[in-house]
């Protein structure tokens, strides 16, 4: 079956979505990712969507669900690389991605993850 690869880098998981996902594939990613967070005891998840040409309400909800689920599993999620045209369209569509942390690129996303995890440890 077709799957989106999840890479483990230390205590982080990295997902780069490179294909135009159909809905079942998006659901599979959500399931795989939550399983991997537990299995790898991940502290952070970075999802790179820079290759995505659109984010519709289904993908938007998947991103919000992943962020919420990872939080419950004691991991932070950051979505990086959203294209400007996608951001403009998302807002007009009415999707605000509440609860989803975003960063401009992978580098800034990693910084944000580290910072958040440090803050959590200090709490």
């Amino acid at each position, binding site marked *: 079956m077709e799957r989106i690869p999840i890479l483990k880098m230390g205590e982080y998981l990295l997902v780069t979505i490179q294909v135009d996902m159909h809905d079942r594939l998006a659901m599979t990613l959500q399931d795989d990712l939550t399983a991997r967070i537990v299995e790898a005891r991940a502290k952070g998840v970075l999802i790179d969507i820079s290759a995505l040409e*659109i984010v519709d309400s*289904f993908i938007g*909800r998947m991103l919000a669900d992943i962020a919420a689920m990872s939080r419950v599993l004691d991991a932070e999620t950051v979505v990086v690389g959203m294209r400007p045209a996608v951001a403009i*369209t998302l807002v007009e*569509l009415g999707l605000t991605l509440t609860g989803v942390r975003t960063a401009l690129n992978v580098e800034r996303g990693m910084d944000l993850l580290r910072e958040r995890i440090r803050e959590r440890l200090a709490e």
Partner: protein
Amino acid sequence: MTVLLSNRHTVQSAEDVVAIRQSVRQRAVELGFSLVDQTKIVTAASELARNTLQYGGGGRVTIDAVEDFGRRGIRLTFEDEGPGIPDVELAMKDGYTTGGGLGLGLSGARRLSNDFSIQSAPGKGTRVTITRWR
């Protein structure tokens, strides 16, 4: 309104929804849509194709390149013979859903297009037409 080019797709699976997105994108590029306008019409198409599949039990979409008073655009018509929508006004509201989604499909697609029309009645299926001009 003159139809310059027309093609049809069936909407029977999640893979069909992806194929429709790609087909709409290609037409938008050919018509010289800006990147933002391409993204808007493709996103609207994705929402409506999913509705046709999920609520209409499948159907078809017609993708037309159209011209009207010298301006060009894309017109998309989604049709199904599903159960229909009892209260169209309610279905158009942000956040209203009967399918467990976010309830942004119809209302969002309307915001992403220039012209929007919907015909639906219980037992009569649903037909949604949107147009986005260049």
